[in-house]
């Protein structure tokens, strides 16, 4: 029963990691501009993430090391420093976007502009980290994210043509707007295959004291949790295809994305969208802040745990305090969170090889994993992900300039 509860909770909380401002905005843009045609990108991103998350959990459960620990130990400090700079810069931009997403949700709910919310929102995120435990962040806040199921309700209420939607699961070439099509596809993949999720998940396995007996649980959580998240992203895309595309509404502002719910749920749609985004972005902001702090603490060998009193892991706590403080600054000056989101998703795609290539080596290292190292199926999938990540790295920036 205990393990069943762990699995159920793990699946539900995975949504918190999957659905955030990046995945919602990119899926809504895809649906509003290209109908069902980009569903394949969500599916591909979800499959990649299932494999990466499963491997991250297995790595930590077996080796009792996080991916960051092992990256520094196996590849040395000079290489680790490059990964650190790349990952932290991108994760920081995603954090700005998530804090902005919370601010924009509050702007919709209250009418007060999001720059006014930047400081209070950052303070609440910091306070939850300061006073909360890992369980509170992982389970409590993520459970609130369940409200995002309203995207599925909205999609079903709009009676989609399931046959046409299924056709979108296979990649197709777009006749017009090729650059924009490519840019949104890259952004969807960047939003789905987020390296910070791997680092967070691997650190979470250590926080939760996983061992080899957790390998089956880890597999179930990775498959069903990430599928659940991907399913919700697809619901956003389908809703946008039916509610926004017919009216030619292209999403450049957050308020336009909020419209996607009002066709299906005229009375509560706007409110539900704002609340869903509020909780999804809050969960993501907490996870990213933790992931960045974990990265520094594990890389430099500091004391770290979200379950310790702050004075016991002072450098870890100071890191998230500074990161959250700095992330609030651009928002106070009114930087558009949607633009930051789109840029950060493309940059995530561009920096993917930095995270995935060393990961392949680690997953095959007998010193860390012994008999639990990757088999040929997992290795083939990671090789394909690396191939995709290199393609994304090369095309993401030009596509951002041409189609973004």
């Amino acid at each position, binding site marked *: 029963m205990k393990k069943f509860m762990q699995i159920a909770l793990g699946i539900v909380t995975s949504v918190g990691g999957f659905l955030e401002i990046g995945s919602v905005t990119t899926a809504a843009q895809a649906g509003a501009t290209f109908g069902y045609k980009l569903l394949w990108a969500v599916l591909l991103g979800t499959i990649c993430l299932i494999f990466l998350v499963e491997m991250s959990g297995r790595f930590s459960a077996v*080796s*009792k*090391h996080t991916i960051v*620990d092992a990256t*520094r*130990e196996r590849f*040395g*400090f*000079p290489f*680790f*420093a490059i990964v650190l700079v790349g990952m932290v810069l991108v994760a920081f931009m995603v954090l700005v976007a998530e804090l902005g997403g919370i601010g924009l949700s509050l702007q919709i709910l209250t009418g007060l502009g999001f720059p006014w919310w930047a400081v209070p929102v950052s303070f609440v995120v910091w306070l939850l980290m*300061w*006073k909360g*435990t890992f369980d509170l962040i992982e389970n409590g806040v993520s459970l609130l994210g369940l409200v995002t199921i309203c995207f599925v309700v909205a999609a079903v209420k709009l009676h989609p043509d399931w046959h046409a939607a299924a056709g979108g699961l296979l990649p197709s070439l777009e006749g017009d707007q090729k650059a924009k099509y490519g840019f949104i596809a890259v952004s969807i993949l960047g939003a789905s295959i987020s390296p910070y999720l791997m680092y967070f998940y691997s650190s979470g396995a250590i926080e939760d004291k996983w061992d080899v007996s957790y390998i089956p649980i880890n597999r179930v959580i990775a498959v069903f949790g990430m599928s659940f998240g991907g399913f919700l992203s697809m619901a956003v895309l389908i809703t946008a295809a039916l509610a926004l595309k017919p009216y030619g509404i292209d999403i450049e502002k957050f308020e336009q994305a909020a419209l996607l719910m009002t066709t299906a749920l005229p009375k509560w749609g706007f409110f539900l969208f704002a609340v869903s985004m509020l909780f999804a972005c809050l969960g993501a902001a907490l996870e990213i802040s933790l992931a960045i702090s974990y990265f520094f603490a594990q890389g*430099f*060998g*500091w*004391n770290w745990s979200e*379950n*310790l*009193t*702050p*004075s*016991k*892991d*002072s*450098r870890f*706590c*100071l890191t998230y305090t500074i990161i959250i403080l700095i992330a609030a600054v651009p928002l106070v000056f009114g930087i558009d969170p949607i633009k930051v989101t789109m840029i950060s998703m493309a940059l995530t795609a561009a920096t993917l090889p930095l995270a995935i290539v060393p990961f392949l080596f680690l997953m095959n290292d007998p*010193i860390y994993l012994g008999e639990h190292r990757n088999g040929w199926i997992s290795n083939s999938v990671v090789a394909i992900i690396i191939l995709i990540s290199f393609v994304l790295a090369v095309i993401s920036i030009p596509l951002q300039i041409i189609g973004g």
Partner: protein
Amino acid sequence: MDLIRDVLDKKLVDREDCPMGRVDGLVMQLGEHSQPRITHIEIGGQTLWMRLHPVFARLAVKLGRAWGPKRDGSVRIPWSRVITTGKQVKLDVEAKETGAIDWEIWIARHIIERIPGGGEEEEE
């Protein structure tokens, strides 16, 4: 023992398993008539950043002098204090006494404990 694989960059813990950083560098003694041997483990920003570029190391030293626990140079611990190597390196020392966690203590005292909730409660 493969020094790069089994020792360098590995996590360091003291005899009570308290984390005290990573093996940032190793000091080797070269004798004319003897085999080279590892004499010390080094911990600290100066050694670590020197591995990237001397400019970073100089910056780390300047930062250390201007702010923080005012420690000159990296911490050196004799190799004879190594108890075990492997997934982590265990040392027969007390972390606090070596100076390896001076920054952790300094930040706790000067910043974290001054913020409400930073130090009073028991661990959950």
